[in-house]
C-alpha cells in the first residue's frame, strides 16, 4: 500500500498514481480478507515521517491490523523508526537510508531485532543488466552492484528484503523471477517479491519458482481480484496456503 498525502495511491512504474482508497478502511478490508502481512510505504516529497497527521493515521491504521504491519518510507534515523514502532508497526522499511547510511540498519536491528527490519531493493533493467533504482532522483544507480549491496545490508542486520522490479510495477506483466532467483541464491534471509503481478497464474508461477512471499498492489486495487479468491485459486493449484 502506497501512502501519499492522506490517501493510498497506486501507479505504474513508480508514476501516474491514482487514488487507491482510504488507508484505514483499506487496511480493514485486507485484514478481513485474510492478508498475511501489510506493508504501508509513504511516498512522494513532503514532510518527514514525523509529520503528526501521518503518525496519527498510522496509529489508527495499526489498530485495524491483526497481522504483521510494516511501515516505512523516508526513515532517516533511529528516532524516525522509533516513532513508527510507537504507532504500532511490527517492522520498519528502509531503502534509501540503507544505501546512504547502512549503520542505521544495525542500530534499528540492535534495538528492535533483525526481524523488525525490512530493507527495500528497487531495481531497473538497463540493457538487460539489473541496477538499483533511486526513486527520489528517478534514476538508476550505475556504480553499485545490487547483489553486493543486498549482502551488505543483510550483514548490517536486515531481517528481510523486499525486491521490487520498477519496470514491472503496475504493468501486469508478471513478477521478475530472474531477479528473484539471483537474490535468493545470494542471501539467506526471507525475500518478498513485488511488481507486475496481475493474473492469478503469475502467483502460481512465482510459488513454483521458490518464491515464498509475494506483495500485491495494483492487482487488488484496480481489479476484482481479492485475497480470498487468490488464496482459493492457489489452494486449488496445490500450494500450501493459509486459507
Amino acid at each position: 500500500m502506497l501512502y501519499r498525502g492522506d490517501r493510498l495511491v497506486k501507479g505504474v512504474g513508480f508514476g501516474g498514481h491514482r487514488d487507491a482508497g482510504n488507508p484505514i478502511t483499506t487496511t480493514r478490508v485486507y485484514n478481513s480478507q485474510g492478508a498475511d502481512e501489510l506493508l504501508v510505504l509513504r511516498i512522494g516529497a513532503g514532510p518527514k515521517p514525523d509529520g503528526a497527521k501521518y503518525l496519527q493515521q498510522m496509529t489508527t491504521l495499526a489498530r485495524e491490523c491483526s497481522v504483521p504491519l510494516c511501515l516505512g518510507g523516508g526513515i532517516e534515523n533511529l528516532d524516525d523508526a522509533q516513532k513508527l514502532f510507537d504507532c504500532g508497526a511490527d517492522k520498519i522499511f528502509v531503502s534509501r537510508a540503507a544505501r546512504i547510511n547502512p549503520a542505521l540498519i544495525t542500530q534499528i536491528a540492535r534495538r528492535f531485532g533483525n526481524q523488525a527490519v525490512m530493507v527495500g531493493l528497487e531495481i531497473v533493467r538497463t540493457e538487460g543488466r539489473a541496477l538499483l533504482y533511486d526513486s527520489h532522483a528517478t534514476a538508476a544507480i550505475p556504480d553499485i552492484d545490487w547483489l553486493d549491496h543486498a549482502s551488505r545490508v543483510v550483514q548490517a542486520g536486515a531481517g528481510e528484503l523486499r525486491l521490487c522490479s520498477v519496470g514491472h510495477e503496475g504493468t501486469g506483466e508478471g513478477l521478475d523471477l530472474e531477479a528473484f532467483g539471483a537474490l535468493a541464491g545470494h542471501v539467506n534471509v526471507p525475500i518478498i517479491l513485488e511488481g507486475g503481478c496481475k493474473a492469478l497464474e503469475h502467483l502460481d508461477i512465482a510459488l513454483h519458482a521458490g518464491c515464498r512471499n509475494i506483495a500485491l498492489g495494483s492487482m487488488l486495487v484496480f481489479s476484482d481480484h481479492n485475497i480470498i479468491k487468490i488464496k482459493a485459486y492457489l489452494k486449488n493449484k496445490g500450494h500450501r496456503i493459509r486459507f
Partner: protein
Amino acid sequence: MKTCKRCLLPETAESITFDGEGVCSVCRQIEHKKKKINWAERAEQFEKIIESFRGRFDYDCIVPFSGGKDSTYTLWYLVKIKKLKPLVVRFDHGFLRENLQENSLRTFRTLGVDVHNFTPNWQVVRKLMYESLVRRGDFCWHCHTGIFSYPMWVSLQCNVPLLIWGEPTAEYASFYSYDEEEEVNERRFNAFVNLGINAEDMLGMLDGSVSDYPVTARDLKPYTYPSSMALQKNGTKSILLGYYQPWDVKQQTKIISEELGWKGDEVEGIPPEYSYEKIECFVQGVRDYIKYLKRGFGRTTHLVSIDIRNGRLSRETAVDLVAKFDGKRPASLDLFLKILGITEEKFQEIVAHHAVSPHETPSCGECRGNCAGKIPHDFPNWEKMVASDLGTRAKADS
C-alpha cells in the same frame, strides 16, 4: 477449466476450493449441514438470544427486508412463529420490480409490521454503479453496502440492538462454512460484502463520471458501516436465522406463498421453474450476465448446483439447463447502458479487464449474437423508471 465433480460450479467461482476427490467446498458444506449439525441445539440457542432482547426496546429486532423469498420467510417466521415485534428496514436500491412491491405490500399488511423505507440519492447511486463497475467489474456496490450498512444505522439511531438476517452464505459460497458462526458484522462486510471498498475509499475514487452531482462524505453515509466501537457500545447482535435452522428454499417458498400470497416472477437468464429466485431487481439480468462474462458461468449454474446438492436435480439435466439459459445477453443491458451513459463496447472493455482466469471474456460481437429471446413482461415499467431521471432521458435522446 476445473469444475466440481458433483455440482456445476467452476474454479472461477470466488471462494470455493476443491478437495482430493474434486468435490467443491460448498458441496461439502451442505453435507456437513445435513449430517453434522445439531439443529435442535441451535434452535435452543436462538430461543435464548431472542428472549434476551424481547420486550426491552421499542422493537424486539430489526429485520432487513428486500421482499425476496429469504427475507419474506424470515419476517413471516419471526412474526408468526416467534411472535416478535420487528422493525422492518428496507433499502431501495433503485430497481425494485412491480410484482415485488405487491408481494411486499401484502406481506406487511397481512402480518402487521412497522416499515422503515429508505431510498438513496439516485444521482449518487449512478456514480457509484459506474465506479464499482470499473474497479471491480460489479456495479452493485451501492446495493451490497447499503443493504448491510443502512440497517446498522437504524439500529443505532432507534436503539434496537438485535438484527436478524436470513440465509447463510454457506449455502452457496465458501466465505464461511456451516461449522462456524457467520455473524453479519464488520469483518464479513469487509471480507467480501463491500467488494473490498469502503465508503471512505469510494469518496476519493469518484470523479466527474456519469453525473456531476458533487458527492461528499454525507452522501455516502448510507453505505458506510458504523464503527465497531459504536456497535459494541450499543450491544449490537447481528445474526442469521439460517445459522439456527436449516435453510430450505423450496419449503420456505411454499410457506410464504400459502401464508402471504407471495408470487415469483420471470427473471432474465434463468429457467422459468426458478421463478422464486432473485425477483427483486430489474437489472438482475445484467448482474448475472457480467458474472458470465467474467467467470464463464451464470445464475443458472448457481441455481442448478443448489438443486444438485439437495438431490432435486440430476447433473445431466443441470448441464442441459445451463447450456440453454446461461450467458445470453439480457434485454435489460440496454437500459443499464442508458443509466450509465456508456456504449456496449465500453461496457465490454471494462468487464473483460476483470475476467477471472482461466476464463476469457467473449467479444462484443459474439455476445450480441447470443441474445436472450424473451423480454420480461414488466420491461415497460423498467423503461419508465429509467426515463424518470430527466438527465438520462435527455442524454439518450441527443
